[in-house]
């Protein structure tokens, strides 16, 4: 067998594309049960950066996030229009194979959702779906994913223990390791720290910042300080009295937090909004 030294390469690393768009959202609207819920959102997610989506709860952030990896496909009442461009194809509609999409775009959820089974089984859930059986490779992949998720040292001696034995913060890092194991290019995170204690939160924030070296991250958060700490870009979404969510402002984190262009943004950052 021909062994090559392999490091997980993500596209973009080779070309060093720091300013390219990974995902371009343009004119995206979302309808639920024929009622418009999100209207005309447009912004671009740059490769290997952290883009935060902030805004009060209920303003469509999670819905937008889940549209990117098409988790709404299951729901017949959900309808999407507009464009979400990824790798040259529109994710709205059936042009992109959804299973391939989900390999390349991973997701970490709000509440840690470890599966029944051991830590080892959890991490390798994705790769095993593709029929990978090589034990040496799997062991290596498990260790490498857990290392990248800053969890390896804590669990290396108990990989066969049930994943539910871990603490909340550890479980969330396990979920991140699990997502990393399929070697995605983009990682979507839906309020990854909101169910965790402050110490775990900081650990995961550090982790997220580390991850941006190799992955493109889109993080939904309602914690503004967090967004300010970690993001390169920020999208502020808000739903007005008509209950339709819109993109209010998008830009570099440095400018949005220091000098927002929109009065609404300013109010939200100052904490004087609902």
């Amino acid at each position, binding site marked *: 067998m021909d*062994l090559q030294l392999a490091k997980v390469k993500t596209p973009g690393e080779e070309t060093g594309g720091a300013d390219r768009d990974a995902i371009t959202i343009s004119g995206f609207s979302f309808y639920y049960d024929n009622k418009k819920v999100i209207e005309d959102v447009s912004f671009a997610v740059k490769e290997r950066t952290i883009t935060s989506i902030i805004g009060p709860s209920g303003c469509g952030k999670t819905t937008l996030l889940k549209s990117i990896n098409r988790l709404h496909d299951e729901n017949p009442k959900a309808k999407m229009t507009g464009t979400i461009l990824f790798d040259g194809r529109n994710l709205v509609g059936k042009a992109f194979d959804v299973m391939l999409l989900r390999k390349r775009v991973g997701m970490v959820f709000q509440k840690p959702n470890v599966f029944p089974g051991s830590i080892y089984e959890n991490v390798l859930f994705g790769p095993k779906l593709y029929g990978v059986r090589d034990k040496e490779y799997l062991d290596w*992949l498990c260790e490498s994913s857990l290392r990248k998720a800053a969890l390896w040292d804590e669990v290396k001696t108990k990989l066969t223990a049930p994943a539910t034995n871990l603490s909340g913060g550890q479980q969330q890092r396990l979920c991140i390791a699990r997502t990393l194991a399929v070697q995605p290019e983009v990682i979507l995170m839906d309020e990854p720290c909101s169910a965790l204690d402050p110490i775990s939160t900081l650990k995961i924030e550090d982790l997220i910042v580390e991850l941006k070296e190799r992955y493109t991250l889109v993080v939904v958060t309602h914690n503004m300080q967090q967004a300010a700490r970690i993001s390169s870009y920020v999208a502020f979404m808000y739903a007005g009295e008509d209950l339709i969510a819109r993109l209010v402002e998008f830009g570099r984190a440095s400018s949005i937090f220091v000098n927002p262009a929109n009065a609404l943004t300013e109010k939200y950052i100052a904490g004087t909004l609902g």
Partner: protein
Amino acid sequence: METKNLLDSHQLIQASIERRKKVDRVFSACSRLASVLSIIILAFFLGGTMSKGIGWINWQFLTGSPSRFADEAGVFPALVGSLWLIILTLMIAVPLGIATAIYLEEYGKRSRFAQLVAINISNLAGVPSIIYGILGLAFFVRILMLGRSILAGSLTMSLVILPVIIIASQEALKSVPKSIREASLSLGATKWQTVRHAVLPSALPGILTGIILALARAIGETAPLITIGALSFIAFVPRGPLDPFTVLPIQIYNWASRPQKEFQNLAAAAIIVLLFLFLLFNALAIILRHRTSERIR
């Protein structure tokens, strides 16, 4: 560590995705078939039964009595017996069932007694119906000396459907929002007044649905009645609650157990009558359920 990164292979990923999507599609079709297979088979059975029995249903069949001669046999005594049974059973089981449910939901909630009752009901719901027949035989028929009468049968059948009514009524009472009780009590009403005038009317549709479903069950139950001695050959119509009797399902059993083809067809005819009643009750329950969920909306 030197390892070839298998997941880098676009071919591997693509091939895997194609294969697994196919498997998923096949499974989806198979499981859909499995879900409806029992319904389809049932439809076949019903169709077969209809064709065998429909020719035998006529006025004479419905008003005549069983006989050794298939052409003269009728189902009237069994029908009347079933009717008697249902009415008496309802009169006994409904008040008892609702009262128990009210006690469990409104009065006794946390007491040890209520918990014991709840455990008992839960167990009784799973006891095979023929055991109730044994109970009825020993207690109602012998000890209470009611003989093999409709009364003994109704008492026995009440015990069979009591858990059904209690559980359904409990669900109905649970679904009444707390605010209704609180509002009534804060206006000065007593507990009973609250239950009777505020909670019960709200829970009534759910309770009624449960009763109708229990009824549908009672009309088809055979084993407990055979055990208490309901006869399978009755040529007369019962006139009082202490008379011996038979019911439709027992008549069906009797005819079906006979080898002659005519009696098999008679059984089919009687089944049609029984199923008609059964479906009638179920339809009533479904309509009631729809009406109530419409109202809630």
